């Protein structure tokens, strides 16, 4: 350590190099004018924007894949007689994310996605409620939220009868209670 310090102190300062020639005096015929500089700058920027724009346009294509490995959004759910009055039917839960519930008047299809943060609630038969395991939201059999942080009721899917008498559930069309859409004739299948 002490050696290093001594060495440092013994180094002599080299003589200052001669000052450089005055700036801007390098006149050898290849001087870039302001106009040429800006032309090249513009060309460069346009090329850059075009390249990035093209790249992002191509990337957009990935949002629309040719094949979707998802279950179909519309499915036949059997005949109304297959469903017991007063019961929440779990048979389409894992495949299509839908609960089918039949009450005294008819049938409706509930989405299995919690309206708080999107977990899948469990149907608790003994307590007659859907209960979300993530943040404790609870929904009644109708889908109305009544406990925990869920801000709005479960969504209902379009449900109609086909010509052969089978139930068709269409998940592309959703009905939200808070928007007053549950009164829609296709949100509830009268049986």
């Amino acid at each position, binding site marked *: *350590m002490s050696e290093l310090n001594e060495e440092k102190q013994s180094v002599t300062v080299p003589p200052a190099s001669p000052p450089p020639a005055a700036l801007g005096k390098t006149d050898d015929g290849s001087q870039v004018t302001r106009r040429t500089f800006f032309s090249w700058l513009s060309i460069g920027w346009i090329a850059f924007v075009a390249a990035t724009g093209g790249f992002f346009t191509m990337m957009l294509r990935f949002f629309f894949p040719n094949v979707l490995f998802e279950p179909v959004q519309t499915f036949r759910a059997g005949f109304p007689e297959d469903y017991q009055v007063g019961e929440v039917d779990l048979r389409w*839960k*894992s*495949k299509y*994310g839908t609960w089918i519930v039949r009450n005294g008047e008819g049938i409706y299809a509930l989405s*299995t996605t919690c309206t*708080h*943060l999107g*977990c*899948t*609630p*469990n149907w*608790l038969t*003994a*307590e007659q409620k859907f*209960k*979300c*395991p*993530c*943040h*404790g939201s*609870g929904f009644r059999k109708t889908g109305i939220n*009544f*406990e*925990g*942080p869920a*801000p*709005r009721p479960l969504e209902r899917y379009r449900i109609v009868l086909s010509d052969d008498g089978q139930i068709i559930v269409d998940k592309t069309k959703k009905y939200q209670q*808070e*928007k007053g859409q549950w009164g829609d004739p296709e949100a509830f299948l009268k049986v």
Partner: protein
Amino acid sequence: MEAFKHLIDTLSKPTILVSFTFLIFFFIFPPTDWFEKWHRRLKFDGLWSVKSFWIISVLLVGFFVIGLSDSDFRAIMLKPDNVPIAGLIFLVFFFTWLSMNQAYNNDKLIEAGQPVDEQYDAPNDKVLVWPDLVYVELITIVLFSAFMLVWSIGLPAPLEEPANPSESPNPAKAPWYFLGLQEMLVYFDPWMAGVVLPSLIIVGLMAIPYLDNVKEGSGYYSFKDRKLSIAIFMFGWLVLWNLLIVIGTVLRGPNWNFFGPFEFWDSHKVEALTNINLSEFVYVKGMSTGLPGNILLREIWGIILLLGYFMILPPLLAKTWLKNLFERLGVARYSLFIVLILAALTLPIKMYLRWMFNLKYIISIPEYFFNF
């Protein structure tokens, strides 16, 4: 033994646990002279002595050793995911104790007119990067890698069934370091608890050097010079972050219900938690009428309450309780400070409103995805 477990389970009820923490916290970390007077009178200043360290450590270890004889406690604490939480409890206590002990020692030194412990003594305190620092780093890397290796072999990550969007595990817990945020999500709309409040936490931490312009106590540990800063930071760090992680790990069970640490995780435990919004309190319970159809008319009470909280309360406090602080910080610093503090306090406020009155949202406009 059963009586002890029952006592712990009762004390772990969120209302009791959190109320007790809030009550005792500001006497342990006194923000003002009044609190400090009681802090000394209640002998909390002895908490940071070496003797207290050993007493508390032995009590903590004893609690875990006795607790592990209980199968329900064992099931929670020995789950590989939750082992870090036991470590966290000890580590947070150790480092809090270490820094507070150092701060109190320095306070004594300052009082006696001596230089603080961290006083930099130019030639004598000089340390070389090579070999002093690099060797320490190397040894740390080797030891830590060995520790991680042993840990990952001893407590392997569980191999579970393939992910299935239609089956959420019950309870579905976030990684342990996010359990505070998950607890926050129970009381707020996902937008608030998932985006706005976490951003405010980051902004608030970034704003500390700007807000805290006290020169004393900079560069060394001390408590007397920075009572308010330490009390506020410790409240956010120990109570609103670490306590919520521990609550999320130990006390949250199936269906996200509260369970005591020695209570069996019964997934059929029935908790009646019918929550209602402020608008329903006012119109349905208060005036015995239906909710008005107009959204603005329906939510006007919550909007008034929230505007009052964030816009009328700060100037009111600046004129009364926080007069000295306002004068020291100036308008810009004070405004930022008080808005951040009030935003942080919405969490405990909403927790209590939920537990005591089953209040869900103060403003609830699900039609436009706005809930507070």
